[in-house]
């Protein structure tokens, strides 16, 4: 079958995903439910050691105020109360400042940065010349005889991002296909059109400073794909993308 004339040209494309780094915000139902679950857990629980200590110390304080007991005060030892401990822990917590969930790249809508939209998947799009048009596509290169389609896709990734990219390709099988016929002007007997096979990979390293980016590129979420991809292409790509 290698000798048979195939009218379709084969391309391998790679959909490189940067997985989310932070959790997605909760819906209202989820938040209410979480609060309810905590409340129920509190109601069904017994007092812990720390709470017992707090209760006992409150009792002691009350007794001391009501019956002017000098014995305890005469001891001279400073006893750390559970309440003081709690305040100390609260202070320490307030001093800690976590990294912001909405980054600078989010605010400036810098779509070439990987630090944007940390709670969703980001996909790599590159500008490629197809025929005489410059289009935004998932990185693709033509298949060459002697390699599997997966290696074609990996080669596509390496062409645009350099060799030092660390990505985990999800299996040998393609995830989707986009078939199109060439415009009548360049269509021949042997060259009816092209089939683009999509592969999926997860980006492992978060540091792409070593990558030599050779063309215009963007990292976009699934919703933003519609801004860049053509309709038919987008339909096929959306089928294998889980949001």
């Amino acid at each position, binding site marked *: 079958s290698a000798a048979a004339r195939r009218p379709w040209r084969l391309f391998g494309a790679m959909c490189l995903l940067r997985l989310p780094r932070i959790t997605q915000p909760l819906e209202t139902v989820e938040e209410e439910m979480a609060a309810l679950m905590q409340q129920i857990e509190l109601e069904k629980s017994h007092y812990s050691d720390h709470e017992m200590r707090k209760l006992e110390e409150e009792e002691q304080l009350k007794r001391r105020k009501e019956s002017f007991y000098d014995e305890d005060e005469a001891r001279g030892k400073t006893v750390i109360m559970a309440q003081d401990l709690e305040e100390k822990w609260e202070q320490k917590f307030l001093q800690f400042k*976590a990294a912001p969930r909405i980054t600078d790249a989010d605010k400036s809508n810098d779509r070439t940065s990987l630090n944007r939209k940390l709670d969703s998947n980001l996909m790599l799009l590159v500008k490629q010349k197809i025929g005489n048009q410059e289009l935004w596509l998932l990185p693709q290169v033509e298949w060459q005889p002697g390699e599997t389609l997966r290696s074609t896709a990996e080669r596509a990734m390496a062409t645009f991002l350099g060799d030092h990219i660390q990505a985990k390709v999800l299996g*040998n099988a393609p*995830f989707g296909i986009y078939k199109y016929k060439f415009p009548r002007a360049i269509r021949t007997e042997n060259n009816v059109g092209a089939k683009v096979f999509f592969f999926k990979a997860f980006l492992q390293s978060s540091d792409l400073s070593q990558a030599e980016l050779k063309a215009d590129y963007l990292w976009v979420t699934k919703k933003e794909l519609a801004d860049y991809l053509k309709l038919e292409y987008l339909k096929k790509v959306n089928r294998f993308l889980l949001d």
Partner: protein
Amino acid sequence: PSRAQPKKKKKVDVRKEQAQKERMKKKLKKLEKAAPELIPIEDFITPLKYSESNRVRSLPTLSPEESERRVLLLKKWCLFKQKQDEAEKKAIKALVESQQEALRELRLESEELYEAAIRRDEGLFPFERDGPSYTPPLPGYDPPEGKCIDITKVYTQ
């Protein structure tokens, strides 16, 4: 010159030692025959100090509005989860269909590429990944000193 008397002692000793060894072996066999003790799961055994009565929390009883609100919230949650599950299943179905279509088209193209595509990828599993956290990692953060020593008891059968 040594006479018969010391020699007798040695023989008796040897026999006594042999009898001792057999007794030990019998004891070992008895212990081995007994069923192995089950490893206790420490999480399921509540320590006795928590069942004291003064530990019981004293809370006001739920008002009817509150219990009504809770029941309605649970029903909303049920519906929400059902919709979420259906959406997930639909997405997975679309994914599988897309892959099947791609493999069909590939087969039409060339058998060898198809065979290469349906081969199992040995390097894929086991696949490990850290899940997302609430805030992104703070660059250059130095956690306060102190370390945790693991004191979980490990039981062997």
